[in-house]
């Protein structure tokens, strides 16, 4: 039993460490232009705490727990949904601009 618990902990530790390296790696080269959208996108991703909020709202036993959990659900939803929408709005403005220009040039 104890060893089973331990191996679970180690699996979680492995997941944690690998995620650290992946996180470092994916953004190591990014132009300043994209810093803001990237931050905003990462911000939306941690809105996935919504999953945790739903789980604790399901488990809640007292009214206090339920109240806090539902507050967490609301806040997490705002973070997640709002975050993705606002990032998309930022990125919409980059869409296809250089390409349109190049096409116009080719036609001349």
């Amino acid at each position, binding site marked *: 039993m104890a060893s089973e618990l331990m191996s679970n902990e180690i699996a*979680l530790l492995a*997941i*944690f460490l690998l*995620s*650290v390296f992946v*996180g*470092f790696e*994916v*953004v190591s080269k*990014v132009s*300043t*232009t*994209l*810093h*803001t*959208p*990237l*931050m905003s*996108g*990462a*911000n*939306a*991703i*941690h*809105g*996935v*705490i*919504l999953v*945790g*909020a739903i*789980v604790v*709202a*399901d488990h809640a*036993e*007292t009214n206090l*727990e*339920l109240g*806090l*959990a*539902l*507050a*967490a659900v609301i*806040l*997490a*939803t*705002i*973070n*997640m949904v*709002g*975050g*993705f*929408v*606002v990032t*998309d709005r930022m*990125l919409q*403005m*980059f*869409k296809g*601009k*250089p390409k349109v220009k190049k096409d116009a040039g080719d036609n001349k």
Partner: protein
Amino acid sequence: MSRNLYDLIGLAAGICFILALKGLSSPKSARRGNLIGAVGATIATIIVFFYANDGKALNNQTLILAAIAFGVLVGVPAARKVQMTQMPQLVALFNGVGGGAAALVAIVEYLKLGDGATTAEVVATVFTVIVGCVSFSGSIITFMKLQELMTTRPVIFPFGRQVIALTLVGVLASGGWVISSGGSTPLLVNGLLSLLFGVLFVLPVGGADVPIVISLLNAFTGLTVAASGYVLQTTLLIVAGTLVGASGTILTRLMAEAMGRSLFGTLFGAFTAKAQASTGAVDARPVKSGSADDVAILLNYAQRVVIVPGFGLAVAQAQHTVRELADLLASKGVEVAYGIHPVAGRMPGHMNVLLAEANVPYEQLVEMEEINPTFPQTDVVLVVGANDVVNPAAKTTPGCPIYGMPILDVALAGNVIFLKRSMRPGFAGIENELLYEAKTTLLFGDAKDSLTKVVSALKAL
């Protein structure tokens, strides 16, 4: 369906997040990357309804769905309606509520586990509560600073260093108290002290460093999500939270580098900040202010014009007007480029977003390293609502808040025109010597109004 299947689907969501961050790091795939992230988050949210209560409908399901609906009703309109200028503070706010959510999740789980919690779970809970609360209250303060609900200057109070250090000791001590004795009172004390620390931590940060702090708090929130994932034994939360924590840390460092700031100096500004010798009285030296016609004439006879946009452009929503002016000049044979400082505006990339909205051709947006060598061959620099990013004090005045930040060397150009609302110093609150130079002309007023006048004056020439 078995729990294993849901775990696999959760893994897919985790991969979506990795692809999302990867996509967001390159201009071509950025929008797709964001959509992939949204898909991953949606999948993760839907499947939790199937497995959280072992396949049965969730307890409190109606309330949960109502809470989600309420969150959507608040979040989506806020994100859709926000002005481009206010985007940075909205991101700060979203980040803050995420940190708050993570702290609440950990608190609820802690209350439920009661005495049954393992030490590791309690440690993770304390970590989540501390960092989540700091992220929450700190983000609220950055929001208020950016929204100018409070002063944008560093707030320094007497014995600030001691108060902050003492609060930090209190946070750690109360954290230790929770771990050693358990119970809800220590956790409450710990949470409140953490909230206080978040406020004190951000207050002394000067305006120009606020974006770095937002990015850092964003990384913090990621780590709290990872820690609450450990408490809940949910792999997906660990993956997503850690990804954001790690990439956010790198991003914070990149931003600090782009601004020429030491990350350490920014973070521990609270401990090192000294009250600046405030000049107090408004400088009474004469400046040369001109009319729209003067500006139009200068521009009309220039060979090369560089436009340096700043926050004032964003405030005035003048991006379309500035493009009109640039097009008009180009049609008169003037070479026009935009000099984009990496942190012009209130966030890195702010100006790129704004000018892209006005369909300014991508190749006219020139980054700082490339535009700086061209200033000596530039006849006129038109500074539209920018100040700190062209302030020579960053090179000449050691000890000023922006010292060491790379700037656009507009002083090397033949003439400099500032479109400004007033003589008020920039966001960082530092006097700009360039305003008093002989080659400088000032045109006071709202950037959009001024630009419109210049355009019509130019047409009349």
